[in-house]
């Protein structure tokens, strides 16, 4: 039983109980977490209570849907009532929230079993999950490698089969990067599709919440459970929630696929380019045609995104300024940078955002989806601040986010899909971008490609 859908079928045919699924996951956490550091807090008592209730309800004929009885985890940025929520920082080391996040509430209402809280980059502000306070999260595909971030614990937990789903948050790639580095699916929905209520904000206009799972259909099942309006989040959309779970056999011939001819394939590790191009060839066969398209200046979009993120993150954290010395060096520098962004620059960044969004949305009048790499390289080694690509040395954080950051400025849905491995055996992800609220198309295309490739089935050897 590897996926949510497989586990659901086994539960409904009484081949397994939620308690047995929970026991297996807690056993894997006990075995693997000392090496991976993917969980900050494990909640066995809560998990046993949730599983016991799920089994009793199923026995009584009460079925809450595909997540009923399924063990999952929440990134430690989601507030959990009565359970410590650290946000990966000493600032919140003893923080026990009095509220539950909207996502946590909806997953519980869908019958999910909470295993615990996953580890992360401090304050969700970085891509390595190399945390100075609680230790680094390690990548199951290479224990000396980063799992990506900021939702690194979620990526590692799902890849190592320690949870059927782990929630992530994504402000500039923090769901998609760990998904790509850990060989999982990572879905960042449209801004406003999933409530941000009860999630510690890194940023006000770039934060998105979404699942990391082994398969696309599992991600769809999770989105189905958590999507929809929430009055407590002022950016939450009232738009009707569509049916997201792809059919058993997807006919994707109606989908118009675009591949950017500029920016996205510049300065890539050749192995990443090869893996993504192979997936694009497959898309051509499955969907009929793939069109080369020119996209607006993504470097400019990234620049605007960085100005907005720096300013908003520092605004969110300004109340803790007197305690900045308790924050790790990398995040402290970013927060200091944000405090210096002039108001006029922030406003002009939001003006440029409108202009660029209009330009980018015009691309989606020609195509339904864009296919791109997620990151220019596979996972780097823990502690390395730079990466060399094609003989050019780049800052690891900026290189790792240059294909994903702009998407948060646009607010459109994006998914990372496993698409192969680099020359060192590290996973590679392909990014599928859709128009606003086009999650169903993103998931359908991803499921069709996944059905033909099955990269998710490969398990990490966890070699050092």
């Amino acid at each position, binding site marked *: 039983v590897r996926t949510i859908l497989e586990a659901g079928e086994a539960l409904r045919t009484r081949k397994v109980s939620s308690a047995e699924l929970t026991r297996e996951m807690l056993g894997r956490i006990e075995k693997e977490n000392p090496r991976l550091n993917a969980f900050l807090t494990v909640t066995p008592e809560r998990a046993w209570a949730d599983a016991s209730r799920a089994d009793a309800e199923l026995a009584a004929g009460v079925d809450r849907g595909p997540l009923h009885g399924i063990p999952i985890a929440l990134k430690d940025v989601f507030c959990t009532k009565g359970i410590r929520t650290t946000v990966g920082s000493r600032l919140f080391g003893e923080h026990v929230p009095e509220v539950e996040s909207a996502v946590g509430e909806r997953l519980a209402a869908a019958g999910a079993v909470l295993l615990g809280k996953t580890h992360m980059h401090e304050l969700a502000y970085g891509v390595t999950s190399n945390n100075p306070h609680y230790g680094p999260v390690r990548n199951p595909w290479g224990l000396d490698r980063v799992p990506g971030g900021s939702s690194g614990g979620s990526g590692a937990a799902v890849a190592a089969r320690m949870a059927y789903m782990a929630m992530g948050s994504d402000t500039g790639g923090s769901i998609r990067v760990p998904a790509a580095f850990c060989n999982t699916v990572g879905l960042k929905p*449209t*801004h*406003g599709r999933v409530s941000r209520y009860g999630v510690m904000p890194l940023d006000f*206009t770039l934060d998105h919440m979404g699942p990391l799972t082994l398969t696309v259909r599992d991600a769809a099942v999770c989105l189905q459970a958590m999507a929809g309006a929430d009055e407590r989040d002022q*950016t939450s*959309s*009232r*738009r009707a929630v569509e049916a997201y779970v792809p059919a058993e056999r997807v006919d994707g011939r109606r989908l118009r696929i675009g591949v950017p001819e500029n920016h996205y394939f510049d300065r890539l590790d050749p192995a990443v380019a090869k893996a993504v191009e192979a997936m694009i060839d497959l898309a051509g066969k499955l969907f009929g045609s793939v069109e080369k398209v020119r996209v607006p200046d993504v*470097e*400019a979009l990234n*620049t*605007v995104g*960085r*100005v907005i993120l720096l300013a908003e993150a520092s605004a969110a954290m300004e109340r803790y300024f007197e305690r*900045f*010395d308790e924050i790790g*060096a990398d995040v*402290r*520098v970013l927060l*200091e*940078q944000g*405090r*210096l962004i002039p108001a006029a*620059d922030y*406003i*002009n*960044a*939001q*003006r*440029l*955002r*409108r*202009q660029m*969004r209009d330009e980018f949305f015009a691309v989606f009048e020609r195509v339904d989806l864009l296919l791109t790499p997620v990151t220019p390289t596979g996972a780097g080694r823990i502690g390395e601040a730079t990466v060399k690509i094609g003989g050019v040395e780049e800052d690891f954080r900026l290189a790792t986010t240059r294909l994903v950051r702009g998407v948060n400025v*646009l*607010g*459109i849905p994006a998914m990372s899909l496993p698409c192969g491995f680099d020359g060192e055996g590290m996973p590679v992800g392909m990014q599928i971008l859709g128009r*606003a*609220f086009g999650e169903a198309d993103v998931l359908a295309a991803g499921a069709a490609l996944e059905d033909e490739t099955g990269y998710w089935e490969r398990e990490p050897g966890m070699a050092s």
Partner: protein
Amino acid sequence: MTDWKQMARMRGTKLREEELDKVAGPLEALEKRFRELEKGLALETEPVNFYVVPEGER
């Protein structure tokens, strides 16, 4: 261009001098690119204020 280190000091930074280099360097590069982009702004362009969801759908 902006003297970011001086600005940080004026805002009461708690960072050490050597850390201020890490603050200033990336901001200098960011500012250079951003100033170019600002030149392309049309006067009538308003800031984004509702991101993706059309106002009528909220």
